């Protein structure tokens, strides 16, 4: 049977609409929808698996077959969603979170792919940056995200591993999960400042949201210029801080990836499966369970990435996708596959 656009709908499900990364997810989906000329449905999970699943089920009930990108609230949501999509005759790509033992290849073609940026290398980026900035000596505190999120767990693992392997002089003082919440990041930072005072030389956060809170806390304690920060996501705000060298270049390391890239890659992969241009079951493992390149950003090289934040960047990226396909687009080509290997 041939692919008829009017039978299909693009669906992008995001965790909330109050976080720059999620906003960017939506941007990408919009660009993709414009490109493919297929209408788009956005699902806002409001940070609740319950809302996420019920909303997605509702969209599926809306008749058209879904080409879906889901940024899952919790790993455990994936199977339910994938099942539902399958029943609706659609195709879905899951980003970031899924049960470790739940594999597209075992499930079937409708679970086109699971995709993410390797959390471990994100953690390692941060660890390297801080370790070098501190000259291999000093104490750091960690602000993981939601405790039971795979994303957070892998990034933490990466950070700890890198420190353990290459920076024996660095001591991890404490670790306070801050639920991706800037407020909580700030609060925990304040408490940690009291607890360790000037023993803190570096702060690593699992994402920029929490880092933004933490930096404010250190600034208020007028410690900002004595401490080095590294995190993940290079939010526009963070970028601005790097540009301006806030706090004697307090930010020493970041990773670059953009929400719009994730969503458009995800949607495009599902689209290829939907149109039959790509038969998932015939793909190699790394194209079903993909790890995409994550670039380490430093105050030196951040300029290379400015272009990806220009207004037309999502559109440009989608163009590129159409030419080179979902697995070879700059700056996030495929970097590996299968389950992410946790360092021991």
């Amino acid at each position, binding site marked *: 049977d041939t692919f008829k656009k009017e039978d299909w709908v693009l669906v992008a499900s995001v965790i909330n609409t109050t976080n720059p990364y999620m906003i960017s997810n939506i941007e990408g989906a919009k660009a993709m929808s414009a490109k493919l000329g297929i209408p788009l449905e956005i699902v806002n999970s409001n940070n609740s698996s319950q809302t996420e699943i019920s909303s997605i*089920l509702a969209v599926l009930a809306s008749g058209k077959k879904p080409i879906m990108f889901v940024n899952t609230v919790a790993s455990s949501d994936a199977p*339910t969603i994938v099942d539902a999509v399958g029943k609706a005759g659609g195709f879905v790509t899951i980003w970031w979170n899924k*049960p470790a033992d739940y594999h597209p290849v075992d499930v079937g073609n409708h679970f086109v792919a699971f995709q993410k940026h390797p959390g471990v290398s994100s953690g390692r980026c941060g660890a390297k940056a801080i370790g070098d900035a501190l000259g291999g000596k000093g104490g750091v505190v960690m602000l993981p995200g939601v405790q039971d999120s795979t994303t957070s767990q892998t990034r933490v693992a990466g950070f700890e591993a890198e420190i353990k392997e290459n920076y024996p002089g660095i001591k991890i003082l404490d670790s306070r999960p801050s639920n991706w919440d800037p407020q909580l990041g700030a609060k925990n930072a304040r408490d940690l400042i009291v607890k360790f005072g000037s023993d803190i030389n570096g702060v690593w956060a699992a994402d920029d949201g929490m880092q933004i809170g933490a930096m404010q806390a250190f600034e208020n304690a007028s410690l900002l210029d004595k401490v080095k920060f590294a995190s993940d996501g290079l939010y526009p705000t963070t970028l601005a801080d790097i540009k301006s060298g806030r706090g004697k270049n307090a930010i020493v390391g970041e990773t670059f990836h953009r929400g719009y890239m994730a969503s458009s890659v995800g949607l495009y992969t599902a689209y290829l499966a939907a149109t039959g241009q790509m038969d998932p079951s015939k793909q190699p493992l790394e194209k079903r369970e993909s790890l995409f390149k994550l670039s380490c950003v430093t105050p030196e090289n951040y300029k290379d990435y400015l272009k990806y934040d220009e207004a037309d960047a999502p559109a440009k990226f989608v163009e590129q996708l159409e030419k080179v396909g979902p697995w070879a687009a700059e700056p996030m080509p495929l970097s590996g596959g299968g389950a992410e290997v946790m360092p021991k």
Partner: protein
Amino acid sequence: MQLVLPKEWKGPAALIASIVVLAIVFTFLNPRFGSVENFRNILFQVAVPLIIIVGTTFVIQLGSIDLSVQGVMGAAGMAWILLSANTRLETDYGIWAWFIAIGIGVALGLLAGALHSLVKVPSFVVTLGTWYIGLGIGIILYGDDMLPSLKSNVLMAWPTKLTLGLPNAFWLALVILAAGALLSRFTHFGRGVLAIGNSETIARNTGMPVNLMKIIAFTLAGGLSALAGILATMQLGAGSPDLGSGQLFTVIPAAVIGGTALNGGEGGIMRSAVGVLLLIILNNGLVLAGVNPSYQSGVFGAILIAAIVAVARPDRGILKIAK
């Protein structure tokens, strides 16, 4: 019947009316809203809150409140999956998994009920405490190990499987609901709860086992939250300490919308159930109507208020007091 509970049936009329109105509007905005799939999908979703609300209603009828729902769900859900055939552990205690998981809920409910009624501490704080404790148990069980998923496809498929055209999850909820309604209308416990909510002093003066009844109510609520946790875990096919998130602010508003006054002595399980239906349909409809996500919360809030105003209208006298 009538003689004993004349009010019981007034409110729901207005409620059901406003549900119908919503349904019509939504179907108009998107015909698919009325589709069989969506109907089943809604039934599938109401199952969990419906189970919870039976306990919630008893507790609220006492004039107390139970915040622990989500914590208990997390604890019970994690316990259950780790004791059933799952991908993390080799264990499979079969039926015992159920007993233990529900046992956790019962225990937490018992704790809350006992402290509340015997030590006379406000239920709001005690159950907030048991909420955190439940969450804590869930998190500890979760550890930082991989997330456990169900092995048995039978279990995973059960909730969605259709019996007589309706998903099993919904049938389960229906049974609990019916049992709850009977308990509420035809037992000393059920009537006693209302009497206590109406005037605890008098209830005591007439020698009612007030404390016992309170404890029963909270224990029941705990057990049902646990059951809901298990069902939710089945629906997901995987365990998570915060799989209850969002439930508290579904069931309590639902009960209130259903006319179960938070200061006790009012309302009924069936009415609360209709309240749940209203909220879920509202959510589902907004999505189907394709409301821009940035506007969703706003619109949801507005409609919620509109709905409650509509529902409140019928029984509103000069002397009526809304808390």
